[in-house]
């Protein structure tokens, strides 16, 4: 059922312009083995004050698509299709310099590996305000005051003293807070956080997720949270995009998605999580698993890319790529049998594109 009633959050006005709308994004890499399509037609939208979780296994294209939106792709990569509109402006149509200027100001990103993202030779305070000094011409004194404010905002204790310290003097959790502070320096409208807590212990992860949720609610920021952890998604997301092999395979509000997935991949993922709640206590029943492994973009299966691993695949699935369409209001699924999956009944052979 629609469990997480987001009463405090704005109701999703259906046709309200989303803050960030990514449409049919495709990204290719030039590699030794030829061109590989890492992202292959991804669409999603984020609204003000809402959290969109993008879930998927490693290699599904979560990071590459975010880097594309931010204009931070490596030189071997190329956006071959699609748009990313921020309040109407297509970021992908901008010149690289404009693109990067736009991002950082209005869209910011937090990376998984905070230690790698921070420069070891500069103090935390210096890095926090580098952009502010460069772009807004803040004086040193003002920059320091702002850095302290930012560290306070992300609840780093004793901010006044800690702005003078170096990244290695911070713990993993504190470094991730610094990364978040740095992303917030320009007051962005949209924050993209790529696996911000994957490297952290659960107790520290809980602190960081709570902090993100607080800041997001306060500023009515659009938050894109990238993760592979379906527990984290359930805890913080309003809407969910499930990615597989470079595409969105399912999109839905979080409650309905968990209550009744409309794509076999989502359904299988949800079943495969070992629970701490002890539903299978004593029995030690085998974990339901998805056979095989995620395909590499160089060897993507024909038709529905999930078909070699799908427990309800039909002949049609081997040849026809299923479009992302709606089996029900507010639901999207890229499965020929989405309506059947949603209703939890076996697929009607032949397949109807409903």
């Amino acid at each position, binding site marked *: 059922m629609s469990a997480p009633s987001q009463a405090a959050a704005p109701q999703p006005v259906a046709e309200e312009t989303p803050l960030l709308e990514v449409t049919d994004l495709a990204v290719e890499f030039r590699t030794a083995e030829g061109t590989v399509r890492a992202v292959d037609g991804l669409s999603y939208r984020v609204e003000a004050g809402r959290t969109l979780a993008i879930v998927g296994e490693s290699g599904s294209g979560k990071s590459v698509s975010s880097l594309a939106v931010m204009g931070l792709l490596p030189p071997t990569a190329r956006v071959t299709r699609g748009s990313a509109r921020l309040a109407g402006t297509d970021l992908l149509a901008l010149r690289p310099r404009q693109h990067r200027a736009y991002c950082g100001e209005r869209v910011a990103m937090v990376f998984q590996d905070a230690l790698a993202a921070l420069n070891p030779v500069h103090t935390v305070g210096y890095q926090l305000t580098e952009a502010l000094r460069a772009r807004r011409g803040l004086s040193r004194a003002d920059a320091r005051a702002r850095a302290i404010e930012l560290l306070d905002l992300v609840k780093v204790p004793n901010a006044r003293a800690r702005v003078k310290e170096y990244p290695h003097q911070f713990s993993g959790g504190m470094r991730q807070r610094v990364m978040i502070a740095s992303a917030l320096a320009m007051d962005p409208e949209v924050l993209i956080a790529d696996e911000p807590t994957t490297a952290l212990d*659960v107790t520290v992860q809980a602190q960081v*997720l709570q902090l993100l949720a607080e800041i997001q609610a306060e500023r009515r920021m659009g938050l894109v949270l990238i993760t592979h952890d379906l527990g984290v998604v*359930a805890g913080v997301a309003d809407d969910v995009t499930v990615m597989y092999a470079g595409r969105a395979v399912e999109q839905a509000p979080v409650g309905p998605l968990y209550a009744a997935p409309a794509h076999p991949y989502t359904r299988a993922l949800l079943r*495969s999580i070992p629970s701490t*709640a002890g539903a299978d206590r004593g029995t030690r029943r085998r974990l339901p698993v998805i056979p095989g492994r995620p395909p590499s973009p160089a060897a993507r299966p024909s038709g529905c890319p999930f078909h070699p691993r799908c427990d309800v695949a039909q002949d049609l699935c081997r040849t026809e790529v299923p479009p992302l369409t709606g089996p029900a209001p507010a639901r999207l699924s890229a499965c020929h049998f989405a309506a059947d999956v949603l209703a939890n009944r076996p697929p009607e052979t032949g397949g109807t594109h409903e």
Partner: protein
Amino acid sequence: MSDAVLQVRELVKHYPVRRGLLRRSVAAVKAVDGVSLTLERGRTLGLVGESGSGKSTLARMLVGIEAPTSGQVLVDGEDVSRLSRAGRKQLRRDVQMVFQDPYTSLNPRMSVGEIVGEPFAIHGIDPAGGRRAAVGELLELVGLDPDHASRYPHQFSGGQRQRVGIARALALRPKVLVCDEPVSALDVSVQGQVINLLEDLQDELGLSYLFVAHDLGVVRHIAHDVAVMYLGRLVEQGPETDVYDTAQHPYTQALLSAVPVPDPAVRLAAGPSTGAPTAQPGLLGGIVLEGDPPSPVDPPSGCPFHTRCWLAPTLPEARADGDGRAVPEVCVTDVPALAPRGAAAAHAVACHFARELVATGVEA
């Protein structure tokens, strides 16, 4: 009578911290600081705890990669340190290790067949039927194609590489596998395959596992018994159901409540949620601990958890210490012993106030 295949008594590992020109030892990292535990034959003991709590150090001592500073490791009742070199080597065969990272733990220049058969060479053993056949059997046992023995690790996926690591660990027919985060580096969909394999092998071969993981869901699934580590010590230990359903140590409770559960009804406390708080573990209504675990170089006096304990400040015995955090004096002065508490005799907790925890039912 219990049938212990592996026992650890008061195991300690301190690493010296050296400074200056003379590399003088100025302090010690107390990675493992007095751990005792028992692994029963044919069962799985799950070991959980945050990063740096000493899980891997303990695991390495169990398989003999690391020598303890003090304490004993007993395999089938025999104290490993008291045996001759040859006897020790023999016993070591009985306890094998599966490593976390299938990407770095396999030698990239060796074929998978060579990797799996290497223990035979190291121990100068010629298995009946020859090494080649034995390697083929091992690969089959873990669900790999024996015809792929000539391939190299980079030609395998993460999950397959982890199977290679398991096959190698099984070569010498050990009684115990020490698995250090064997599925942490794998995708969820592949994790389950390896967990199922480990469970099948246990049933088939009567293996005993010490299973180290930070994922509490995975541990609950695979383990019969669970031990919780904090700063080099065990803070709670017992049958899986007791530790998960009636956790008594404030740290275990916090850990369980921090695990995000895949149920949107359990929402993050600070989020714009209006869902009613539940007694379930998870972020909503959960206990969010402050700060990070302290350094094992200079662990807190008394109860190592007292600097982060959420319970201590709420107790009537709490009184302010120098640092401004009011906790009962005994938490700062006395190390709580790991002692049986609760319904099951096997359920042990290291907290001066665990009894009160039961009485007040902090779970709700």
